[in-house]
């Protein structure tokens, strides 16, 4: 190539690159969203990852849907009738419901979907245990007959905690509840574009033209889901700093969970809004193994409780912003109906390291190794793990810090073997606040010994409290049961909540209609 032409073309390229980017002006009918994690599957019944649930509620719907006060309202159903003792429920589907492939939604689809969901969900399992029969008198009517009263049926069908009771076509709902579904056809306002899906990078949702939203105003899962976008792109950006840069640059419109340290930068940016995303927040969790020493001894567990500083944990997890965390001497979510601090005295006040050391000696702790499993690839668990290592050293315990990844943690924590044989003593996680408002979705609260969640705490008092809650006829009785559960859980130290924390969400100022909810709500959102 002649030197002149070479230089000429270089200059041309240079000029194009040097011109400031006029706009990432995207159409106002396309929303680009950065989710909290990679979307690797779409089955929100077989798998309970939060990000999967967030995507699934766009594609599928529920018979009933909860609003921001956790009150269920009709969604796919027109309404219901129930007999006086809550054993005979009849639902009628509303008009105009169609699947993304054009077929009509029928009662058979509903029955198959509920059957699949019942196997995996705690409330669903209770319904299944007392199920007499499903009946489908016609295409639009479903009848559920139980042999025991279940007053909380509407909440069970309409809740947003995973597994959500999503209604799918019968052929898909017939998939084994322990296998992931392979087809993503629903009746919700958005269709999933499987052809353009690049797992780990991009997931595309397209507006379902034939969707008829309800007339009422939308509120979480209830009301009319009016979609103002033709296309929603979920852009997966693995690196937090890059996601921040992309949001500031206008390359994406909405970032679900900016890390709290970057938030001051985003707040300073005139083009961005920053606000708390989910007012129900999260509860951190310090989970001990009750089957093996030293934590099979309640005195040892109490010693840790005396020295544990929730402030340390919370600052490590969310940073310096005091708006983002609260101490939480309770097993329930602050700000909700059942929140109580009774029984949590040991977590309050000045931390007592000397007292903890004395109690350990009294308990007979003799320097046994404590196997602490830390998933270092997840920010929250890594922060909690580091604080724990320091805490245990301060009270004189012998820590074996096992740094590994989330997947391996999942396997190790399921082992009931002794820590020296590949088991564990402590692991960390966190629970969405929405899952801790009452015992129903709260698998980690259970203290049924062998049948309980990992750690296998055993406490008759806690179990009685949970049974009382299920049988409670009104809110006052529920509160009484909750207090009993809280006290008993602290008495036994089933696990230790490390604090209550919130997360921000951030979006471009030209996007409006973003609401606070336990999952990102896309209906009612628009872009100018």
């Amino acid at each position, binding site marked *: 190539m002649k030197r002149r032409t070479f230089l000429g073309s270089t200059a041309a390229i240079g000029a194009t690159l040097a011109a400031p980017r006029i706009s990432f002006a995207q159409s106002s009918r396309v929303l680009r969203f950065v989710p909290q994690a990679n979307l690797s599957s779409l089955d929100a019944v077989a798998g309970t990852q939060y990000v999967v649930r967030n995507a699934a509620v766009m594609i599928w719907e529920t018979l009933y849907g909860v609003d921001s006060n956790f009150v269920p309202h009709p969604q796919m159903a027109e309404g219901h009738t129930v007999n006086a003792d809550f054993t005979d429920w009849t639902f009628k589907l509303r008009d105009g419901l169609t699947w993304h492939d054009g077929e009509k939604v029928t009662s058979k689809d509903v029955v198959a979907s509920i059957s699949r969901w019942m196997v995996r969900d705690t409330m669903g399992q209770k319904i299944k245990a007392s199920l007499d029969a499903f009946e489908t008198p016609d295409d639009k009517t479903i009848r559920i007959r139980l042999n025991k009263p279940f007053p909380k049926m509407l909440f069970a069908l309409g809740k947003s905690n995973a597994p959500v009771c999503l209604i799918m076509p019968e052929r898909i709902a017939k998939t084994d509840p322990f296998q*992931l579904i392979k087809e993503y056809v629903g009746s919700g306002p958005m269709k999933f574009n499987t052809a353009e*899906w690049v797992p780990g990078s991009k997931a595309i949702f397209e507006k379902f033209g034939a969707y008829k939203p309800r007339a009422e105003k939308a509120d979480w899962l209830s009301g009319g889901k009016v979609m103002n976008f033709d296309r929603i792109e979920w852009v997966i950006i693995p690196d937090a700093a890059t996601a921040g840069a992309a949001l500031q640059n206008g390359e994406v419109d909405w970032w679900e969970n900016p890390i709290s340290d970057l938030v001051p930068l985003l707040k300073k940016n005139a083009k961005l809004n920053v606000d708390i995303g989910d007012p129900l927040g999260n509860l951190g969790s310090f989970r001990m193994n009750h089957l093996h020493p030293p934590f099979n001894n309640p005195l040892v567990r109490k010693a840790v409780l005396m020295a544990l500083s929730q402030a340390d944990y919370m600052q490590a997890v969310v940073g310096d912003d005091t708006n983002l965390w609260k101490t939480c001497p309770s097993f329930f979510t602050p700000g909700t109906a059942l929140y109580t601090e009774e029984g949590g005295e040991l977590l309050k006040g000045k931390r007592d390291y000397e007292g903890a050391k004395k109690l350990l000696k009294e308990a007979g702790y003799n320097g046994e190794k404590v196997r602490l499993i830390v998933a270092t690839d997840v920010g929250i668990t890594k922060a909690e793990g580091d604080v724990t290592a320091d805490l245990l050293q301060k009270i004189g315990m012998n820590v074996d810090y096992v740094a590994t990844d989330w997947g391996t943690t999942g396997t190790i924590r399921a082992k009931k073997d002794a820590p020296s044989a590949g088991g564990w003593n402590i692991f960390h996680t966190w629970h969405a606040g929405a899952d801790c408002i009452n015992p129903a979705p709260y698998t980690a609260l259970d203290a049924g010994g062998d049948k309980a969640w990992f750690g296998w705490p055993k406490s008759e008092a806690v179990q009685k409290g949970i049974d009382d809650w299920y049988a409670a006829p009104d809110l006052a009785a529920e509160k009484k049961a909750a207090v009993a559960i809280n006290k008993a859980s602290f008495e036994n130290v089933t696990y230790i909540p490390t604090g209550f924390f919130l997360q921000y969400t951030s979006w471009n100022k030209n996007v409006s209609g973003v609401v606070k909810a336990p999952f990102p709500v896309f209906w009612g959102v628009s872009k100018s």
Partner: protein
Amino acid sequence: MFAYIIRRVAATIPVMAIVALLVFSLLYIAPGDPATIIAGDQASPADIERIRMSLGLDRPFLVRFGSWLWDVVHGDLGSSIFTNLPVTHMIAQRIEPTLSLMLITLVISLTFAIPLGVVAAWKQGSWIDRFAMLLSTAGFSVPVFVIGYVLAYVFGLTLEWVPVQGYTPISEGVVPWFENLILPSIALGLIYMALIARITRATMLEVLSQDYVRTARAKGVGQRGILFIHALKNAAVPIITIIGIGFAALIGGAVVTESVFAIPGLGRLTVDAILRRDYPVIQGVVLMFSFVYVLVNLGVDLLYTLFDPRIRY
């Protein structure tokens, strides 16, 4: 020569078989399985076991390995445990970004490194030489992600010349495609540039001291002619060797670059799959990597014959 090529290609099969067995065994022994991740945080141990069984993960090692091998031989790399998409489809989606990144990295590195090395050799001992070598050594010394962040900040956020992340397929326009790739390529290419510049300089020095160059100079051939026509051609062999060796390093660095710049490449696919224990994807990608690597080595060896007629197989 033809026979040599056949022999080399045939030799790739045992290599890939060894690699496949190694990787499969490693994954089998490693704890953690996709069932726990699919089941999610709140699932009970019984649930997880059910999912494991439905995935066929409770079968003995030889049965699983044998069944996978059988499928591979029939061209079926299986489907991802999570997404249910065929592994070949998932790999195919990510080949274009990875190849594009490597191509532009190579072009940029060669464009800057070879002239740098030539000039350094030509002016050996002068401050240009020392400076060029210091520059290239420095390029070799900084971690890729640090360079990546700085580039993204300066050119993406502050100057707004190019986007900070993402990938645009070439079908949507060459300019956007290039704009998305230029920063990652520079970040990734600095190491390559360093290696190639040094090798070029060293080889050129050796060649320039040869008798035939002195003869050419005596005959009156211009400096440029000597440098480019005689010397560079003879320096080509070691340069190509380095390109081949650097290929493996590129894959490692590419994972980091793909993370920083959110490019949907094979590196990121592999790491995500490993962390989720998506066995079919991991096995498929590693198998493919080893195949490509062996081909690259073969290509490099064949290129030798082009540049150095003395080399014959």
